């Protein structure tokens, strides 16, 4: 089973988008042609699910996701703080996104507790993870640094969009594993939570795509170049993460 990237993007925009985003779709299509994303291929999906069949790995995966969602929430607030005033609508969307991610961090802990009630986190680890997750509501981080230029906003939005695509794919892959591990009494609840997460990721793909489209109106060729560059770098990063080769996670 492989996942069709273009269909994923179409579904996200159909479900949550208000524009067709032709420049964005073209840039994504070209980027995937130049550098095939490893995370939609059979080998990646099989390996991820093989590992997810082991409770210890899946528990670690849920915990790692909680921490990464918390990190993402803070990073998004930093980004929001540098969005120029004329892009107020984008800033509001990014702040909403940050709040979603902070909530997702707690959702991943909830999935861990529901799916593996027998699992034990050391007291220190649980406390540190709880403290690491930002409280909501989050606000843009006030900074003395100058606002981003349009091209910098476009670059960061492309990176967020690409990261969200892989995040959704990972969640598509582990959802059935969560269902398999959950006891019958909580299985429906676990699946319902996992599907809500999947829908949120679709929404994040859609809103970033729409803003990317708006920002690229006058320079679609720039979008193609930026998206392809970041897409390729993220593919390489994914491969390094898989092998654990000199990367901070």
């Amino acid at each position, binding site marked *: *089973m492989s996942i069709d990237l273009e269909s994923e993007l179409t579904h996200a925009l159909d479900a949550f988008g208000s524009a067709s985003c032709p420049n964005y779709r073209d840039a994504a299509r070209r980027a995937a042609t130049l550098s095939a994303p490893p*995370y939609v291929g059979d080998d990646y999906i*099989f390996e991820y*699910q*093989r590992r*997810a*069949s*082991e*409770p*210890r*790995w899946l528990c*670690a995966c849920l*915990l*790692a*996701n909680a*921490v*990464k*969602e918390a990190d993402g*929430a803070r*990073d*998004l607030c930093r*980004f929001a703080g540098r969005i120029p005033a004329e892009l107020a609508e984008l800033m509001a969307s990014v702040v909403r*996104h940050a709040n979603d*991610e902070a909530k*997702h961090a707690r959702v991943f802990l909830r999935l861990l507790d529901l799916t*593996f009630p*027998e*699992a*034990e*986190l*050391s007291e*220190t*680890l649980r406390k*540190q*993870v709880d403290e*690491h997750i930002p409280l909501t509501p989050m606000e843009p981080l006030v900074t003395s640094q100058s606002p*981003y230029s349009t091209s*910098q906003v476009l670059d*960061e939005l492309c*990176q*967020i969009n*690409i*990261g*969200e695509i*892989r*995040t959704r794919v*990972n969640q598509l*892959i582990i959802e*059935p594993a969560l*269902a*398999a*591990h959950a006891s019958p009494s909580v299985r429906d609840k676990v699946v319902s939570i996992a599907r809500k997460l999947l829908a949120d990721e679709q929404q*994040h793909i859609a809103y970033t795509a729409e803003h990317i489209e708006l920002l690229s109106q006058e320079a679609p060729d720039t979008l193609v170049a930026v998206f392809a560059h*970041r897409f390729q*770098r*993220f593919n390489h990063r*994914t491969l390094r993460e*898989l092998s*654990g080769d000199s990367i901070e*996670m």
Partner: protein
Amino acid sequence: MNDKKAVVREAAHLSLTDEQRKAIEVLAGDRKVKLDGRIEDGKLRLVGFQVLPVGACNSAFDPVE
């Protein structure tokens, strides 16, 4: 091992029968997982895991140019 591979491939299709779910649980081993570690410099370090699972990425992964 081959049986495990077959079961996990079925799981990828997002629609599991009760029998398949049971098969995964049986293969899954000990559920009394103990996780220990710490968050150091903002990074999760789990005892016994040299490589953490590829997790969520919801923000920029490279410095913005």
